[in-house]
């Protein structure tokens, strides 16, 4: 199995008081695999994914270590180089679709702008690409959506639009940070099925979540984070059937319904 992304000794500290927040985190993301990062609020899982995307403010956080992607250390690239990679090769789906879109701009225009920033296409071509991609996301009345402002659409619709945009540029890796946490169960199920289809195209995913159900449904590999450190890692089967740390066992026990209840 070849690795697409290799994270080595990632350390994040607060500039203000040198307090370490993420400590010596190392992991790999295999090509075409789904890596689940699980932890509770404050475990450092979101900061880790933001550090990979180079989204952390340097005035607040010091990021040290290596993020190897196709032979380059992403942490050492210039602003210009990074712009070519982010969005194009690595894209991110955020937790809150309501705040991830520009509220003053219609969806269609936001899609066209994203496409045109990376590909030499005309407005019309970019628009058509957007329409095609939205249709693939099980969305109806796509031309109406393209002509809508974000606040007129539901959270589930916006999340699907965000995934559509992330897929438009055919990235090699998608980071989904609590992407389904705020959604209804039925929409969550649709989105997670979508993740598996993305994987079938050979795209890797990092799925950040606090819910072992999400991990059970989509992940191949898992890392468990607590207080900024990786306390356990392995394949999804190792973690579920043979957890090593008490903390992982406790997280697994937080599922509500008893074992004998089988999910239809």
């Amino acid at each position, binding site marked *: 199995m070849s690795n697409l992304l290799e994270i080595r000794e990632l350390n994040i500290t607060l500039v203000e008081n040198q307090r370490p927040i993420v400590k010596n985190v190392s992991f790999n993301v295999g090509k075409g695999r789904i890596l689940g990062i699980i932890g509770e609020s404050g475990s450092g899982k979101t900061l880790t994914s933001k550090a990979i995307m180079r989204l952390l403010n340097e005035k607040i956080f010091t990021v040290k270590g290596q993020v190897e992607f196709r032979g380059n250390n992403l942490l050492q690239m210039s602003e210009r180089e990074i712009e070519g990679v982010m969005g194009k090769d690595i894209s991110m789906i955020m937790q809150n679709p309501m705040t991830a879109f520009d509220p003053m701009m219609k969806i269609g225009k936001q899609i066209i702008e994203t496409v045109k920033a990376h590909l030499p296409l005309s407005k019309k071509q970019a628009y058509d690409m957007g329409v095609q991609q939205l249709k693939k996301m099980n969305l109806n009345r796509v031309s109406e959506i393209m002509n809508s402002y974000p606040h007129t659409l539901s959270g589930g619709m916006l999340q699907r639009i965000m995934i559509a945009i992330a897929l438009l540029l055919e990235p090699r890796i998608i980071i989904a940070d609590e992407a389904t946490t705020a959604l209804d*169960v*039925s929409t*969550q199920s649709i989105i997670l099925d979508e993740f598996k289809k993305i994987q079938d195209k050979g795209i890797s995913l990092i799925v950040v979540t606090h819910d072992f*159900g999400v991990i*059970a449904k989509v992940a191949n590999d898992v890392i468990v984070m607590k207080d900024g450190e990786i306390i356990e890692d392995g394949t999804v089967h190792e973690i579920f059937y043979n957890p090593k740390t008490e903390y992982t066992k406790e*997280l697994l026990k937080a599922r*509500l319904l008893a074992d004998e209840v089988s*999910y*239809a």
Partner: protein
Amino acid sequence: MLEVKELCKQYTGRDKKGRKTTIQAVDNVSFIVERNKSYALVGESGSGKSTLARLITHIEMSTSGQIKIDNKDMSKMGKRELRMKRADFQMVMQDGQSSLDPRIKIYDSIAEPIRNFSSINKKEEKEKIENLTQKVELPLEVLNRFPHELSGGQQKRICIARAISVRPKFIIFDEAVSGLDVTVRKKILDLLLRLRNELKSTYFFITHDIDVAMYIAKNILVMKDGQIVEQIENIKSFSDFKHEYSQMLIKSLLPKLPSNTQRK
């Protein structure tokens, strides 16, 4: 104790072209809540479950239909009577932080309902508040803090302490455990189950998670598009759900264990 009969609530809005449209948020809903039982209302976003809660607590007025409390029509109650009834009907909301006044200390937040509904001296009040804090399993130090200094789970516990301070007969939880980490969610639910034995209150639990509903309540109402599509008493297992919408919700639940296809 509570009887809801043919309850309807319409909202009037305008569509994009400025024409008046009516939205039937709650559509001919009838059910009976008996004392000392636990109920859960399950539905997805937009199903009208929160509107229903706001009607029952008289925060909003219904368009038509009846709400009877102890065989008395709520709309015929005077202001004073209604105010005293409010002590019997408490509500715990989804967002702990915005339910608490950010400018006043936790101590006074808990004291507020007590001062409104009873006349006890300062010493008794202090004893009562400390007792409540212990009941929701928080250290007494939190009483001196402000809401933003507490975690989401702690804020939720404070909201519960406030609600139970007046020994209500009926507590409505509107998505009270959504947005919490799964481990914190389980702890809060277990706390509520313990408190219920002690308080002898009736719980009315609104949630979009069918597993939360089944964990906390024996009687389940499923709501869709403003209507109650299914009502089950003394639920035992998933197979008690007959309506196709309920079954869809169950199907969307996340698996407890990974499927074999992920074994690689």
